[in-house]
């Protein structure tokens, strides 16, 4: 067996140039697939991260119908009690509540339709892009019932600044055909880089937004955000056993189905592209192997005449393919890792084409993208490259088994 391997190796080196070109072709294709996947993985993870921090949570408790139908009356009651219990269960994690209502903000010069977001100021200071990017004034204090934050673009449109008074007109929760007005004072102005936040949203405390809802201490979501995967797994399992009445306890996988679907479809689309690349490379390999077999017809004839079995010779050809694939897998993976490096460290900047952030299915993400190494996928693609090369040698190998020694020796 070992002699067969060394023979296959020597055969490949007999036409070093041809072998080199083929290896280069396969490895460039492989490296490209690996790099693209690594870049996408980084993207998907940052998307999920934004989604979890901004729109759901690793664990989120919400009305059973909120996911399909986020209507204002789909609230969870006694939200403070639930939040405090979650806090007690998860002392290391962030626990936050959210309210999402709509309203009309009026100032002396303008009227703008906005989303009124009620948040728990303390945890949200770490979670929200808005809280991390306050450009004037300061972020809401805990339990600040009258404070309001808004984006710089909206502030400009309304002609308001820090300490200005703002009226939010919204439907009256007791009788939605009537309207109700709430008075707030601007505590700070943020620039999050997300258009819908900066232009069409105001943020207040949960307490401040509750008059827009109906229920006892109501909120729309109570979310837990963990630091590590292990905490997440434990936390989800534990939260699922909580008694929250009619509300639903969802994991991030259940709470972000659109994002999951997007990632799945995007992965699939890319894999089709990878397969196309693979197919083109395979055609090249078939050609190379076929030529190398046809060149050696006489040689194979002599070997057969000397007692080599056709099967052994076919094995030799497959082995040559395997070695070719192995070399390509090694070179390709090295190249893939190399190409990924700058993408993982300095990243890829799409801000000119996408703006400061880009919105995908309602989730804002940075337009500076970073790749993330995915060793498992890189290994899978490398093995696929070896498998395809061996497969591409199957036809040439089959042709060898059909040779007759006498004709083969006489072959020109």
């Amino acid at each position, binding site marked *: 067996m070992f002699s067969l391997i060394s023979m296959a190796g020597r055969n490949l080196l007999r036409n070093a140039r041809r072998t080199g070109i083929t290896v*280069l*072709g396969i490895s460039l294709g492989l490296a490209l697939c690996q790099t693209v996947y690594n870049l996408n993985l980084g993207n998907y993870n940052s998307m999920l991260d934004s989604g979890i921090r901004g729109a759901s949570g690793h664990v989120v408790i919400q009305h059973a119908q909120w996911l399909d139908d986020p209507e204002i009356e789909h609230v969870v009651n006694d939200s403070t009690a639930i939040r405090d219990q979650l806090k007690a269960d998860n002392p290391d994690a962030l626990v936050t509540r959210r309210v999402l209502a709509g309203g009309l903000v009026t100032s002396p*010069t303008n009227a703008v339709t906005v989303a009124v977001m009620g948040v728990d100021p303390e945890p949200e200071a770490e979670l929200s892009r808005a809280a991390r990017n306050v450009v004037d004034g300061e972020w809401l204090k805990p339990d600040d019932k009258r404070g309001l934050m808004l984006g710089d673009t909206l502030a400009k449109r309304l002609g308001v600044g820090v300490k200005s008074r703002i009226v939010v007109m919204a439907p009256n929760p007791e009788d939605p055909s009537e309207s109700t007005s709430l008075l707030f004072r601007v505590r700070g102005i943020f620039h999050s880089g997300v258009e819908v936040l900066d232009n069409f949203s105001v943020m207040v405390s949960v307490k401040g937004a509750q008059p827009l809802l109906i229920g006892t201490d109501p909120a729309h979501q109570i979310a837990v955000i963990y630091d590590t995967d292990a905490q997440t797994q434990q936390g989800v399992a534990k939260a699922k056993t909580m008694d929250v009445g009619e509300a639903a306890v969802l994991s991030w996988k259940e709470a972000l189905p659109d994002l999951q679907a997007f990632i799945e479809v995007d992965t699939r689309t890319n894999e089709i592209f990878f397969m196309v690349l693979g197919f083109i*490379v395979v055609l090249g390999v078939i050609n190379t192997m076929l030529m190398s077999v046809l060149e050696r017809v006489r040689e194979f004839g002599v070997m057969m005449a000397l007692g080599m079995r056709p099967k052994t010779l076919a094995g030799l050809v497959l082995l040559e393919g395997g070695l070719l694939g192995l070399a390509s897998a090694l070179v390709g993976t090295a190249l893939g890792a190399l190409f990924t490096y700058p993408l993982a460290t300095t990243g890829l900047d799409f801000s000119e*084409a*996408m703006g400061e952030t880009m919105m995908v299915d309602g989730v804002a993400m940075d337009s500076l993208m970073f790749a993330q190494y995915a060793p498992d996928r890189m290994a899978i693609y490398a093995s696929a490259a070896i498998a395809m090369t061996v497969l591409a040698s199957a036809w040439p190998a089959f042709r060898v088994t059909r040779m007759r020694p006498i004709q083969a020796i006489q072959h020109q």
Partner: protein
Amino acid sequence: MLALAWRNIWRQTRRSLITVSAMAFGAAICMPMMAFMDGMFATMFDVAVTQQIGHVRVEHPSYSETNSMFDTLPNASETLKQLETLPETSAVTWRVHGAGLLGSDQKSTGAMIAGIDPVRESTFTSVDAMLESGRWLSKPNDIMLGHGLAEELNADLGSEVVIMTQASDGSIGAGTYTVTGVVRSGNAMRDKQGVWMSLSDVQELLFLEDQVHELVLLANGGRSGVDALRTSVDQTVGDDWRVRSWYEANPTMAEMLKLGQQQSSFMLVIIFFLAGFGVLNTMLMSVFERTRELGVMMALGTRPRQVVKLILLEGFLLSVLGAMAGAAMGGALDYYLCTHGLNLGYGDFEMNGVVFPNRLKGVFHPSQAISVVVSMMVISVLAAVWPAWRASRLEPVAAMRAD
């Protein structure tokens, strides 16, 4: 020499066919991929530019920053008439924007109000594609709702809604309107919060007589006529008003379209680069096989330059075959994609405020096929350069002795 090259590539039928099919396969995949991406960008352009910004727009100098109801263009009908006569434009429309509280008999919510000219607006957008149900505005007090808003208010066609807002004179403006249509425009925000009413109704509601917030124009000859239109609009309206082309109003979109082009080219280069390796190997082998033959030819007086030409011609012929087969297959796939569309299974997928339909159709431009065919030919001829150069360097005597 062409005949000689042609015969040469058929001496190894199988090898040539495999090489050609690698190229053809690459081309056949590139074409629909480009058509699909162009389809995506066409949807984006349609929603963000044609329906909203227009090719060229005129507005109050500070309107784009303030969006204030007071930053209007006065004497709008006079300007509209002037703009309409410009030879560089194919369509002009005008709009008023506002915000108010919209109520049905059960509920109320905030809404973005667009006052449009029903007839003029219909040249900017496909009315049938935009209407999910009901009919387009035609009578006073007609109103169309974005589908998200209609759902939220449980407002059916024919039901009445009330709008309350602050008018420009400081009074409270209010009116009752009849829902005639439900709109699915592809603009995520407007579909969730927007209502469309006739221009005159909104002008009356907001107390803005003969004032509009924007005048929007489409260029004759599409996107290529934008710059000419912008210049001539600029001269017509004077310095008091702000004139911008779509790429000045939305530079991000312009960049995104450019990026899309680059991505397509990048993909093309990768695929043909890999196919090029196949051509390189094939040509190199075929030169080595023919060392003796080429030696004889050169001994009989064939110049090295002619040998180079012969090999390049062989590479070129391979690429022509690949291009023809690829364009035929790619064209068939394109046809399906452009007529039936492709269901990606995203559901309604939203990106940067644009909602893409579930079944997205490709858009075919002849330039796609041309760039595929040309880049394939260039790469395969380039791949034949090295083998050709090697062949030309053969010493006739040594070559004839090679085995």
